[in-house]
């Protein structure tokens, strides 16, 4: 296979992978509504049913604080463990050296790409910015919305 074939092949695969994103989410959403209809539900608004809700029972302020503090410590521990492991297993070594400097001018963005897909990159960056904001804002809204709706 020539270098041109490799480049063309990878470019095609990149576009197929990007299209898969649309197919997966559009397909997933359609499937969700199909399954909803199969079980006798509608869009989800106004046709939901609630099962009995259990009572909330914490461990008191001190107990809850200790649990949350412990969870924080465990999270940091897990993160550190992964960092420790990957950074050592994947450290550059003689059997797997870093690439040599090719002297490219890295102030030009195109030199960062093996396959030039500027339009696709712009679209993906715009969606990524939108999604980052969505993830952060909607994630942060859960507790306030729950407190307003159901109380503490």
């Amino acid at each position, binding site marked *: 296979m020539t270098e041109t074939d490799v480049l063309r092949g990878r470019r095609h695969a990149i576009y197929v992978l990007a299209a898969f994103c649309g197919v997966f989410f559009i397909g997933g959403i359609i499937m969700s509504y199909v399954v909803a209809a199969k079980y006798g539900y509608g869009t*989800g608004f106004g046709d939901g049913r609630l099962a009995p809700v259990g009572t909330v029972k914490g461990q008191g302020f001190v107990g809850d604080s200790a649990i949350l503090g412990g969870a924080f410590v465990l999270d940091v521990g897990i993160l550190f463990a*992964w960092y420790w492991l990957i950074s050592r297993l994947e*450290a550059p070594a003689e059997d797997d*050296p870093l690439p*040599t400097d090719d002297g490219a001018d*890295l102030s030009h963005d195109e030199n960062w790409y093996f396959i030039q897909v500027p339009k696709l990159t712009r679209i993906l960056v715009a969606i990524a910015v939108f999604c980052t904001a969505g993830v952060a804002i909607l994630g942060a809204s859960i*507790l306030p919305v729950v407190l307003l709706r159901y109380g503490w």
Partner: protein
Amino acid sequence: MANQTPVQVNPAKHSMTTPQSDKADRWLLAGALCCGTIILGPLGLILIALGLVRLQRARRLGEWARPIAVTVFGMFALVDASINFVGWSLDIFAHNTHMLQTMSGGWGRMVDGGYYYRYNSTWLGGVSDRAEKSFAMFAVFMIFPARIVAAWAFIKLRRWGFRWMILTGWAYVFLWVGYLSNLLLNFPERFGNSLYGVTGWWIFDIFYMTPFLTLPWLYALNRRRWNR
């Protein structure tokens, strides 16, 4: 310990001092940490935006800096993975607290019945749906902590960061496929047991499409640039 050879770490011109970019990275990291707390997400976004502005300023001043797309995708992966990691880890480690039960109960009643129905009824506690709990374990102990460290290393142009962004990206795609299948298979207990069901869940969760967006773009990059 025989035959040890010095390893080439290629400092070359890419590791020249970049004080403005390093400062910008600190703003980005602070933003990601805030987003990771979940509740401080909007503040985190502001810090990330300030970091991006500082990074652009550094580029305009002629200081060497990576392309903005690298930072945007790295931060997207970092924020997404942090929220997933912290959210699910609270269900695993802190399901006995009043705050978690309130939050899970409310979230469950609104969009995913699995988060309130028979909550804390299994030996692991928290969400009672077996498959959901299995995904949570996979998420908290495997994929998301690995993705968090990979995303930061990717931003810092470490080679292993690039490799693990791809590896955890695929793992996240596999997670999405399994997770969605499980949700739909347990429709009556999950979507059906909530107020806003299907539509509510998709409005909240479609934003977590990180790997689907990132993977095609990662394969377009020249991996030689990740040479630290």
